[in-house]
């Protein structure tokens, strides 16, 4: 740290020319993307830097989502925080409670004088990062939602019609039987089990995941994931697991490898799995909306998002915040968003970006890429489907993962497992509440 500081001082010393008076204001941007996504972020930053001469954005990769958040927190404690920090949706409540560490985006935008219309963002995306008073706290960046991926060749191999209606879990249940009977070793696999089969499941069926509007209207929230609808779904999945119709591969997106290798017939995964599946799958695939249980709750309501938003950190000069405002404004412009959406499978987070993509004929050339958008925007979000705002949620997801594993292995019934998840999760919510009084 000191060496770079000294080197930096030495460098700026030698570069002190008369021009330095017009030096560009630097904006630090920390993100969690590597590989293809990392390249795309880099390209966005370069485009912004080339588009104007007042500010220069410096992007740096800080590890995965959790590591990036931790890097940001550690940097804040050392008073070396970046201007813009990417935080995954799970960390939203943590950031929102950190008054004094964050500068709300609506404020940054107002001060920078940039034209900014929060209503340009689609409702379910905006709602996740906006207070109940309608103030946008962080800028939505990459958002995705779970969908059902279908390996059409695996269906044919098992003698099942790949065009079967898979919109309800009732239908999927029957298809899983046929796939199994047809010799499929892996009829169904999933990624991100808690996100898809509990968090999104609850929103999609319009049943609460937690009290207090899923945590939106108070820190004194309690988990409600042991409700009737959730338990019925997990019981069914537990049965499938026992009969070898649902194969569990791990807590994150391990199942993606199995699906892309062609082993599995059905795969519940984020819409952002598109880039990887398109690049690797040696079989005919298509995308369907996430299934729902016919007759349970108000399904299909809308699904919720996963992904990250950009938080502006407190403690910098006002001139720098102007640069931040300009950069965020650039990122949310419809051209940038449209190309991001088309390249990655993430949602177009502004209505205009979606429209631009449609007009460009992208959805006609790549059928199914708009399913996620339709699924999320078909209905106006309710208090149960606006999103989740729970403290310590990364840890709570860990607890949910453990309890789900107990169902898949047959150690616990779905009811017992979810009761235990509620009890253990609530204990963490109470800790978070007392830490943020």
């Amino acid at each position, binding site marked *: 740290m000191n060496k770079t500081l000294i080197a930096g001082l030495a460098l700026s010393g030698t570069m002190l020319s008369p021009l330095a008076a017009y030096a560009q204001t630097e904006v630090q941007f920390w993100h969690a993307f590597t590989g293809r996504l990392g390249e795309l972020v880099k390209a966005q930053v370069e485009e912004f830097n080339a588009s104007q001469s007042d500010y220069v954005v410096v992007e740096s990769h800080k590890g995965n989502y959790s590591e990036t958040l931790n890097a940001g927190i550690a940097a804040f404690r050392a008073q070396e925080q970046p201007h813009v920090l990417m935080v995954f949706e799970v960390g939203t409540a943590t950031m929102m409670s950190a008054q004094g560490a964050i500068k709300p985006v609506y404020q940054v935008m107002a001060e920078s004088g940039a034209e900014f219309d929060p209503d340009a963002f689609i409702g379910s995306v905006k709602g996740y990062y906006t207070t109940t008073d309608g103030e946008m706290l962080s800028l939505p960046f990459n958002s995705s939602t779970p969908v059902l991926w279908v390996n059409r060749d695996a269906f044919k191999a098992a003698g099942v019609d790949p065009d079967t209606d898979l919109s309800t879990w009732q239908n999927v249940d029957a298809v899983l039987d046929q796939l199994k009977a047809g010799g499929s070793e892996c009829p169904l696999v999933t990624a991100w089990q808690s996100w898809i089969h509990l968090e999104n499941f609850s929103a999609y069926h319009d049943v609460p995941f937690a009290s207090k509007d899923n945590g939106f209207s108070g820190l004194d929230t309690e988990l409600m994931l042991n409700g009737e609808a959730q338990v019925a779904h997990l019981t069914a999945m537990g049965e499938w697991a026992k009969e070898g119709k649902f194969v569990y591969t791990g807590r994150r997106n391990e199942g993606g490898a199995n699906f892309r290798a062609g082993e599995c017939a059905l795969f519940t995964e984020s819409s952002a799995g598109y880039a990887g599946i398109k690049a690797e799958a040696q079989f005919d695939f298509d995308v369907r909306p996430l299934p729902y249980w016919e007759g349970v709750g108000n399904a299909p309501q809308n699904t919720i998002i996963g992904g990250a938003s950009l938080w502006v950190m407190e403690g910098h000069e006002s001139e720098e915040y102007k640069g931040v405002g300009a950069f965020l404004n650039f990122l949310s412009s419809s051209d940038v968003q449209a190309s991001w959406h088309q390249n990655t499978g993430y949602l177009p987070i502004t209505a205009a970006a979606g429209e631009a993509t449609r007009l460009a004929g992208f959805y006609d050339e790549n059928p199914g890429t708009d399913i996620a958008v339709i699924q999320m925007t078909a209905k106006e979000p309710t208090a149960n489907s606006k999103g989740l705002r729970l403290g310590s949620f990364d840890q709570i997801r860990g607890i949910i993962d453990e309890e789900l594993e107990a169902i898949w292995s047959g150690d616990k019934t779905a009811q017992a497992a979810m009761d235990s998840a509620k009890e253990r999760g609530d204990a963490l919510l109470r800790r978070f509440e007392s*830490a*943020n009084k």
Partner: protein
Amino acid sequence: MARLSQPGDRLEKRVTFRGWLLPLLLIAPQVIISAVFFFYPAGQAIWQSLFIPDPFGLSAQFVGLGNFEFLLNDKFYRASFLTTAVFSILVTLCSMVPALFLAVLADRLIKGSGVYRTLLIWPYAVAPAVAGVLWLFMFNTRVGVISWYLGTLGYDWNHVLNGGEAMGLVVVASAWGRISYNFLFFFAALQAVPRSVIEAAAIDGARFWRRFWTIVLPLLSPTTFFLLVVNIVYAFFETFGVIHTITSGGPQQTTTILVYKVFSDGFVGQDLGSSSAQSVILLIVVGLLTVIQFKYIEKRVHY
């Protein structure tokens, strides 16, 4: 180093200093290092364990012993003591027994022992997290070579759901690199066993195993004791990279050892209060263990 001494021996070689300055200066580096790298952080952990702070350090609620109460009421936390004990014992055994076996074999080699030695030391150079990924690849439930092979034998390997298999895998992955380290020490110690003693026993008609049990093993005891302490400390503190990459403590916390929970609560969950309280508990546990080791086990060591 036994010194031949008799009653009334006045040749005591005690160095005495005049004044305080020089002795203070001489011990200062050690004291400063201990203070900066041990007492200061340990003191901070004890202090922080009394609070529930928010992640950004903007505010903290004083809760007294609340963090400890919260932990000890958590049945998963209590279970992780047992998990830690099982894990540490298994890692220590699985890294020391094969190491000793290999060292004995390498010691008996006449030709090519250099090559064997080099190859046996290699795994030590692999970082724990990388070792974790290597083993994870081999045992991956779907694409792993070994799990595929087990599948053809009719055994359905699934460490993501089976706690016993998960424990086995993290133990093997943690112990593997350690075998090299232990091998090095055992090998050196074997070389130091005087040939004359072994030859004398051989002339008396003692076979290999008898010589090993009655002569070699007792002479190795200082090394064994040292390795026991070092390996237990390793299993306690340095294995969380392996656990993080292979199981993340799962399934159902069957591989969550104490130090992994300190890491995951502190650096994933940002719950610094609980994390500090856990470090304090861990400090006490390791302190007690060290006392026990030196008080009871060291007595059986022949120097």
